[in-house]
């Protein structure tokens, strides 16, 4: 068995008296999509926010390529090529697409000033690949549609050569056509060898896109299954009942 690209081992975090994530272990292989499923408040977003550096774990370890790493803030995560696309689309609404795409990692000129034309040119290049219809480069992203905003967020992750991509409900705000576009993109990135964590409520979509799914409930990991070994109903009962009926029988 090869070394996982990324492994989170026995992760716990609590807020006040509540254990938001309780001793959870997940991993992802290169070129694999792992889905995280569970009700709202099950701890999925909290778990991946620990990976993204937005929260600090209370216990547990994180390994990249089998080496133990410390992620204390979002900069650490970026340095490890872990990129996150948030459910809330973490964009600054008042800035344009290029400024958002390069936020925190601006291209600068010889004088140390930000090179807006260069960044816009780079943005146009990557957008031509991800979303050829995207044309509104000089407008604040507030005036863009959900799909256009999402493509800015995805472009940000892709441009900086993410190895591990976290997608928190990437299609929640999108229309049918845009959802299909994101699905195609996930398949393309997977083929390039990225490890992807995907959070979604859409079980059918998860069954189609993921190789494995990990189900969480009340902060605990119920189980991780290969999608070909389970049915959509099995997954649903894991989410709702907190157990896998097949395993019970066997």
């Amino acid at each position, binding site marked *: 068995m090869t070394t996982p690209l990324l492994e989170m081992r026995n992760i716990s975090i609590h807020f006040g008296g509540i254990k938001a994530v309780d001793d959870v272990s997940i991993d992802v292989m290169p070129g694999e999509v792992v889905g995280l499923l569970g009700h709202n408040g099950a701890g999925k977003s909290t778990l991946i926010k620990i990976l993204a550096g937005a929260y600090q774990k209370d216990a547990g370890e994180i390994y990249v390529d089998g080496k133990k790493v410390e992620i204390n803030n979002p900069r650490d995560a970026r340095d490890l090529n872990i990129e996150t696309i948030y459910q809330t689309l*973490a964009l600054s609404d008042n800035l344009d697409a290029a400024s958002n795409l390069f936020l*925190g990692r601006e291209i600068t000129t010889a004088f140390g000033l930000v090179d807006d034309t260069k960044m816009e*040119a780079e943005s146009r290049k990557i957008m031509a690949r991800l979303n050829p219809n995207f044309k509104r480069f000089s407008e604040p992203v507030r005036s863009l549609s959900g799909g256009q905003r999402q493509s800015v967020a995805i472009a940000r992750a892709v441009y900086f050569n993410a190895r591990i991509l976290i997608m928190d409900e990437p299609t929640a705000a999108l229309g049918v056509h845009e959802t299909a576009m994101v699905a195609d993109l996930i398949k393309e990135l997977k083929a390039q060898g990225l490890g992807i964590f995907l959070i979604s409520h859409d079980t059918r979509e998860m069954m189609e896109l993921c190789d494995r799914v990990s189900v969480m409930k009340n902060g605990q990991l119920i189980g991780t299954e290969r999608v070909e070994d389970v049915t959509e109903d099995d997954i649903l009962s894991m989410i709702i009942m907190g157990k896998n009926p097949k395993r019970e029988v066997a």
Partner: protein
Amino acid sequence: MAGGLGKIIKTLQIDTRLLGMIGAFVLIAFIFNIATGGTFLTPRNLFNLTLQTASVAVMATGMVFVIVTRNIDLSIGSLLGVVGMIMGVMQAFVLPDIVGFGSPLIWVVAVIVGLAVGIGIGAFQGWMIGYLAIPSFIVTLGGLLIWRGTAWWVTRGTTVSPLDPTFNMLGGASGTIGVTASWILALVGSAATLYFLFNSRKNYIGHGFPVKPMWAEVALGGILVGAICGITAIMNAYQIPTRVLQRRFEQDGLEMPEGYTEAYGFPISVLIVLAVAIVMTIVARKSRFGRYVFAMGGNPDAAELSGINTRLLTVKVFALMGALTAISAVIASARLGSAGNSLGELDELRVIAAAVIGGTALAGGVGTIYGAILGAFIMQALVSGMGMVGVDSPFQNMIVGAVLILAVWIDILYRRKTGDS
């Protein structure tokens, strides 16, 4: 907007809000000019107007950053007071004993000490806001009381004067650069403007981006150069009164030649405003720091998740505000030639009003440097115009207050119409 004119403005890519503010300024100027029988729009009055606005204009540029990051700074008036007082005490009592009376080092050291105090206090307040998470309103409201009290305590309420003569040139009519230097400056400024327009066009074409038609580029260049030369001509048209000139000649032990005249040209304080405006505009639009300020204002969580240290950024923003307040303290105390206990009183409100009239949104994320400076000029034009017409003080305050509310309301309507939020 009318179809033809609207199209021209759009092609020129001029901010319509900027046009609106210039329009408001011109309107105010013409109304007062009629009401005062033609004395408002004289070189003398416009010269004095720029001198009076300089201090508030410098601070307003810093307030843009503070408000853009969803903070407020109520302490700057008091901070200006304490910095002015410390610089005054340095010049009048401390430094002459150390470096000798009349030494050219006096004003230099005083300004450096003032800047250090301003930056230090600003950074300290920023640290409490960023790292201790105390709301900026509270920290700076406390600062308003603390620093005013400190200024009072330093001199037990007395006014410190006279200040160093060279220092006084940094804010008053005694410090102007003369006609020739003013025109040279206008030429350099015009050349730099045209070079900048040309270079940015070349850069756009180089990346294959769409550019304005050539006539629009030429028109914009013409308007800017015209404005630079126009303002220079006004500053150079104000003749120094004969008795002032006479006194200068007498000081040098010379006799003034018959019929000798000389004009003021640009005051040094106005050049300081210009320099601050240019530097702050570059910082706002072309530096990483400025980009992060606006990113944090637009969405603090997104900025943090993008790896920006928003706490440290807050400290820097308030330290910058402190530095600019110190520069304003130099200008304000130099203009008066003294440092009194009431120096800078209520300036925080004038500065916030200038920034807000200039289109800075209190919700954060939106604001421009030129807007804040124009806002400061509009406010000062209103105040000194009313003074010239003879409007009583209580009415002046009432009108300025009403104008502030009206300006923000118009801004809200404008944003709603253009779809900006």
